[in-house]
């Protein structure tokens, strides 16, 4: 497997630098945006995907010459960037810092799903019109496309340097990055600066998408998610907001990936990037090239807890609602309805778990689906391979998810604000990738089949009512426990950490201890939820709990009101139950979630029942 001659290594190096160049086009844009608006733009990957599709239209439908295609892609994506700034950022200028980040996640979901609806989820070929000659160097070779990518990368960097250095608007951009308020005082139109920066960054991102499409000769609507993450990783390696650092970080990441693939194989590709991300966040949160090992101060922090008066349900109402929910199968007997609601209760467990860490403790986790996956795999494998009775495997899976989830997120405990979100996102991806690659344990891409159903005294609980009752009873039990926890000294302690971790420390609150406790409880709840899902679905694989599930969970808890136990249940019921009951076509569902998330952040950040 290991190449012994120099030739292949030269190829890997060239390949790494080419990919690095593509990442650089993304990372530079992200760095520029971070510089002026202190925002990590999660929609950037989607812009890249849009660029690829505009390019595809230009090449295959309009048969435009290559230079015109490039200009069209840059212009189209530049315009999109300006729109993103207008919709995602400007209205949220005075909102907590995490709000625009959540908005860009919503935008990204909307863009990806729209592309999927317009162009179908299937990959498409994006032919290059370039000649196919290759120059042989040493034992490797360079093709025309490699040179084009390098040229575009270097050319863009040069143009950008000239713009920032020699134009008036470029000065304004740099001034805004240094001190936004002071720039505004001096008459800099900060909105215009932001718009320009988003446009430039998005134009670069779009071109990058086009180049990648040509390089691999394939594009698909979901290509943006991973690419956007890579851009973020590259930017973090170089130090957030640092443009030359972003370029260096990108080339480095490209090389790491290329060599990593050479050594371990393609399926590990993304693992390198995310492991590198976690290492960087933990060891050098300011990036490789930063002088001081100090986290950037305030701008990255701020919870998304809108001051609100939460709706407090009276005790009798809670009992009445719970009794009504329990009695429902006695009245309604349609299996489809019961199954749908049962599924909603399972997702409510995930929401309950997320609302504790994201709402109560203020650690906005973007990788929460990973906990479901851990729970699901733990329980299935315990039941199938270790012969543990399902009834015992489910709580054991909860414990595994609690322990593993806490241990995985533990390195991120010292991070704050956006960094927590990025780290948890990476942890979620790592879980998926490990499941995919650890074939001897998880059966890899084939998935786990024939998972036994939950059964009591030899009687499997698979009929309509049980699919509804079991999740509901578990949900009610956990909801009651979580409410009790929030009413204890732990509730105020966890919320104090969210409100002001420095003040909390000064009053003796050990942050690691309580964050760990919260993640353990959350891991247990989500782990049991994932385990139940596995036993009801009877088949799981690494794609059963993908990243969009984490975004869905976040939408649920924001819809219900962050930290709000009843809100989490309501959010899950509304977002999982309603679309199904109204028979909304499945392909529109994610789009609806994205739009709901955007509208909530903009117009009702406290959710339906209020943040607690």
């Amino acid at each position, binding site marked *: 497997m290991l190449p012994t001659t120099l030739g292949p290594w030269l190829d890997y190096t060239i390949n790494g630098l080419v990919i690095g160049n593509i990442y650089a086009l993304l990372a530079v844009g992200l760095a520029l945006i971070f510089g002026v608006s202190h925002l990590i733009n999660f929609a950037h990957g989607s812009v890249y995907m849009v660029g690829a599709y505009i390019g595809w239209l230009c090449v295959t439908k309009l048969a435009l010459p290559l230079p015109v295609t490039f200009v069209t892609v840059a212009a189209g994506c530049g315009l999109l960037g300006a729109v993103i700034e207008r919709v995602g950022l400007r209205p949220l200028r005075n909102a907590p810092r995490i709000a625009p980040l959540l908005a860009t996640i919503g935008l990204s979901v909307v863009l990806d799903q729209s592309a999927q609806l317009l162009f179908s989820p299937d990959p498409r070929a994006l032919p290059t019109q370039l000649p196919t000659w290759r120059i042989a160097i040493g034992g490797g070779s360079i093709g025309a496309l490699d040179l084009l990518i390098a040229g575009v990368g270097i050319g863009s960097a040069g143009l950008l340097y000239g713009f920032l250095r020699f134009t008036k608007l470029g000065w304004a951009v740099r001034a805004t990055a240094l001190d936004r308020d002071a720039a505004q005082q001096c008459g800099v139109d900060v909105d215009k600066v932001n718009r320009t920066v988003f446009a430039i960054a998005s134009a670069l991102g779009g071109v990058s998408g086009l180049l990648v499409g040509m390089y691999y000769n394939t594009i698909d609507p979901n290509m943006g998610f991973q690419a956007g993450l890579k851009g973020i990783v590259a930017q973090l390696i170089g130090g957030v907001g640092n443009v030359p650092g972003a370029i260096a970080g990108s080339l480095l990441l490209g090389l790491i990936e290329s060599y990593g693939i050479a050594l371990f194989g393609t399926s590990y590709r993304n693992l390198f990037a995310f492991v590198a991300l976690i290492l960087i966040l933990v060891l050098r949160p300011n990036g490789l090239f930063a002088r001081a090992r100090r986290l950037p101060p305030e701008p990255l922090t701020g919870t998304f807890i809108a001051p609100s008066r939460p709706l407090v349900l009276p005790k009798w109402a809670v009992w009445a609602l719970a009794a009504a929910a329990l009695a429902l199968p006695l009245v309604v007997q349609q299996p489809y309805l019961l199954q749908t609601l049962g599924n909603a209760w399972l997702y409510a467990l995930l929401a309950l778990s997320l609302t504790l860490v994201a709402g109560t403790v203020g650690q906005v986790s973007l990788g929460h689906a990973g906990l479901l996956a851990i729970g699901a795999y733990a329980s299935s494998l315990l039941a199938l391979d270790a012969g543990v009775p399902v009834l015992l495997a489910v709580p054991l899976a909860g414990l595994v998810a609690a322990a593993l989830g806490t241990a995985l997120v533990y390195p991120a405990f010292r991070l704050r604000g956006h960094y927590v979100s990025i780290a948890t996102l990476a942890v979620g991806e790592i879980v998926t990738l490990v499941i995919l690659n650890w074939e001897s344990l998880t059966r890899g891409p084939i998935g786990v089949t024939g998972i036994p159903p939950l059964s009591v005294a030899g009687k499997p609980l698979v009929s309509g009512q049980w699919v509804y009752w079991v999740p509901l009873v578990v949900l009610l039990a956990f909801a009651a426990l979580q409410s*009790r926890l929030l009413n*204890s000294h732990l509730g105020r302690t966890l*919320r104090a950490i969210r409100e*002001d971790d420095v003040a909390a420390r*000064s009053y*003796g609150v050990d942050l690691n201890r309580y964050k760990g*406790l919260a993640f353990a409880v959350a891991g247990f709840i989500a782990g049991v939820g994932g385990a139940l899902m596995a036993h009801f679905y009877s088949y799981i694989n690494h794609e059963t709990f993908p990243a969009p599930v984490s975004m869905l969970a976040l939408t649920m808890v924001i819809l219900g009101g962050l930290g709000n136990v009843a809100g989490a249940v309501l959010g899950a019921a509304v977002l999982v139950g309603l679309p199904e009951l109204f028979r909304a076509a499945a392909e529109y569902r994610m789009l609806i979630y994205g739009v709901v998330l955007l509208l909530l952040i903009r117009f009702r950040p406290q959710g339906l029942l209020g943040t607690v």
Partner: protein
Amino acid sequence: MADQLKNSLPKKPLLEIAGLTRHFGGLTAVNGLSLTVGQGELVSVIGPNGAGKTTLFNLISGLDAPDAGSVTFEGRDVTGLSAERLAALGLARSFQHGRVFGNLSVLDNVLVGAHTRLRAVKPRIPLVGPLVELALALIRPPSVRAEEERLRAEAKEIVRMFGERLTPRLDKPAHSLSYANRRRVEIARALALHPRLLLLDEPTAGMNPTETAEMLEIIRGLKARGLTILLIEHKLDLVMQLSDRVVVMDHGARIAEGLPAAVASDPAVIEAYLGHKAVGAANQDTGQDTGQDGDAAVPVRIAH
């Protein structure tokens, strides 16, 4: 000067700082500072904006670690200990700009102050301690319930010290309070810790004269109860009335120390406050204001 002071120093120093230094890049925010606070004493630290007072507090309270020097608390070297450990040793502080827990009620804010005093619910067991704490919080045996009730009653008692200002707002979220009330909540929270040493960072910033006078009475009351207090304050009349001793800082170093009246007439102090050489050349000073401790532009009032 140190010799003169020896006599006025009480026998047992509670806090001893020696040669404390902290650099931020090229700037030395605290420069070889030494300071002692005796049991039951009230010592004020004054000085112009950017003198390094808040950095000093951060170093003492463990939010920041010094580059050199030592901090001794009750005879024990606590240099570089974490803020949470220092809190457990009995050190409580308020923050310059007020850092209450906005979405927590006034009562919960004060109860967080008592966090280090939780015993029944937070047994000192290594490794499984957090899990035991979780279990106890969920099961709530009588001992845990009794402890919670006792702390609640005590927290209400502390809040009552601030009279009608806070008592009616016990269940209101702290973000709904006025600025002055948030400062009161901070002090109530600090008292709930049962501090051995209380650090107050500009407790009257943003308060009007009436509110300042009330706060003065409260601090006087605390002092009368024997509490040891280290105070940063810009309102010099308040400093003059309360302090046993005053330490003046400028550019991170101690430029004067002594009884309030002596310090107020010290030429070095006047120069530090009103500018170097030419009085009124205020522009000279703005360049020096590093803003390291983020002082708000509070007008300096030298006592008459």
